[in-house]
């Protein structure tokens, strides 16, 4: 089972942004503790904070009946940050929750992933492990759920006439 990036998303993003969309989503969804632990092994270049990490909210919308017109379900906390590398790449981090360091690392990683100099390092030491952990967690849940699926059987009475 792999992380699903919906076709619609990819279309919205255009061909050029699909990869960026994927790593930004991975960074947004990963637990802050995991991101920060992996980040310890990353050597980051000089950068400048364009917008310091800030926590706010995104209103989560549901659909009437599950597939109809939207309605406002409730909000979720989100933290964002923007940085620029000395070489010019701008990184944007949007992460679930209120961890400012998580948003800062996401922004810095986004900037580095846009640079051919830093891309491979960040991919190998941050994005790939995060994605593997995500997939492993989802898979474990999926297998547990599958184990609770009811198998109906029908009692057939074999009565001799």
């Amino acid at each position, binding site marked *: 089972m792999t992380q699903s990036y*919906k076709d619609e998303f990819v279309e919205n993003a255009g061909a050029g942004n699909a990869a960026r969309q994927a790593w930004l*989503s991975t960074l947004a969804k990963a637990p802050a503790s995991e991101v920060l632990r992996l980040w310890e092994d990353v050597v980051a270049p000089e950068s400048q904070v364009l917008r310091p990490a800030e926590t706010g909210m995104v209103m989560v919308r549901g659909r009437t009946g599950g597939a109809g017109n939207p309605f406002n379900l409730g909000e*979720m906390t989100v933290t964002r940050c923007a940085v620029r590398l000395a070489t010019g790449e701008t990184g944007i981090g949007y992460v*679930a929750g209120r961890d400012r360091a998580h948003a800062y690392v996401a922004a810095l990683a986004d900037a580095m992933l846009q640079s051919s100099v830093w891309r491979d390092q960040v991919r190998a030491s941050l994005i790939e492990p995060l994605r593997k952990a995500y997939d492993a967690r989802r898979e474990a849940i999926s297998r547990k*759920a599958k184990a609770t699926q*009811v198998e109906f059987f029908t009692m057939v009475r074999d009565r001799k006439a």
Partner: protein
Amino acid sequence: MAYVAVKGGERAITNAHAWLGEVRRGDVAIPELSVAQIREQMSLAVDRVMAEGSCYDPDLAALAIKQARGDLPEAIFLLRAYRTTLPRFGASRPIETADMAVQRRVSAAFKDIPGGQVLGPTFDYTHRLLDFKLAAEGGHEVPPAPVSEDLMPTQLATIAQVFAHEGLLEADPVTDSDKPPYDLTREPMAFPADRDQRLQALARGDEGFLLSLAYSSQRGWGSTHPLCGEIRMGEVCVGFMPDELGFEIELADLPMTECIMLSGFAGSAEQAPQYTRGYGLTFGHNERKAMSMSIVDRALRGRELGEEGQAPCQDEEFVLYHSDVVEASGFVQHLKLPHYVDFQADLQFLRRLRREFFDAQSKAQALHMKEAAE
């Protein structure tokens, strides 16, 4: 009457709060609860606080529960108050619950629903006997949950999708995808309320209130003849488009519970008869709330479906004006705050009424005596 100044009491309040802190901590010989322990081990309380607090953040909800000494409406109030301090970055793309990574999905209506009946981590079928193993000091080993060799399908068809081709169930047409839905956090309650407004209010609504309304409906006060089409619980992807990016990213996979309740048939000269539906959706794992919400949602659709109901659950003003636990709790509990002036005014008025009553009585008595004497 002189105005009674309500001032002072600072020392009493400070001391009362200090005592509250002490009582909250309880016996110091017992280890203190951490927020993480509440988040992990009181997870359904956390889910309820997030749903009615209308803010998804398990750490904040756990902190609120700790601060409120486990009083969930108080914790919901704390979370609601906190959210007002944060800016809003925008709104998500409407979620697709059909794509949920399902942990539990049962249909009481249709045994052979494609994808099967998946029980997930449920209290159902437990015997409700207290488990004293959980009381053992030092805890006990939790045996790991069995895992299947197979995976769940990545997408489970919903009950609506299963019967879509036959038209047996009403559809959810997207008629107005551009119109931003009603937002009770920005606009006051207004009537008549459309379904988007009602669903938001119900999603934030008090679980106990909605449960009782749903129960009253089932018992005949505005029955909708519900049949549980489907309950599903699992993680749903939330997509959001930050302005500075210009494309959407996936922000989170949030656990949610959804209920689709099938209800009485509706049909007309133009429209073939089909099931109507009620809808429930909450953050976290909260089936009682999602089911109650779906029954009340359906009951409130009377106007649209040409039903003339007089029961409480069918009256949208009654339901929506009284469903919010923060408002209800605030209005009932404000009565314990100083009402000295009201009381003094009442007393004066009451004393005058009594004086007039006794005056009239003694006058009548005097008249009676006089008549008797004559």
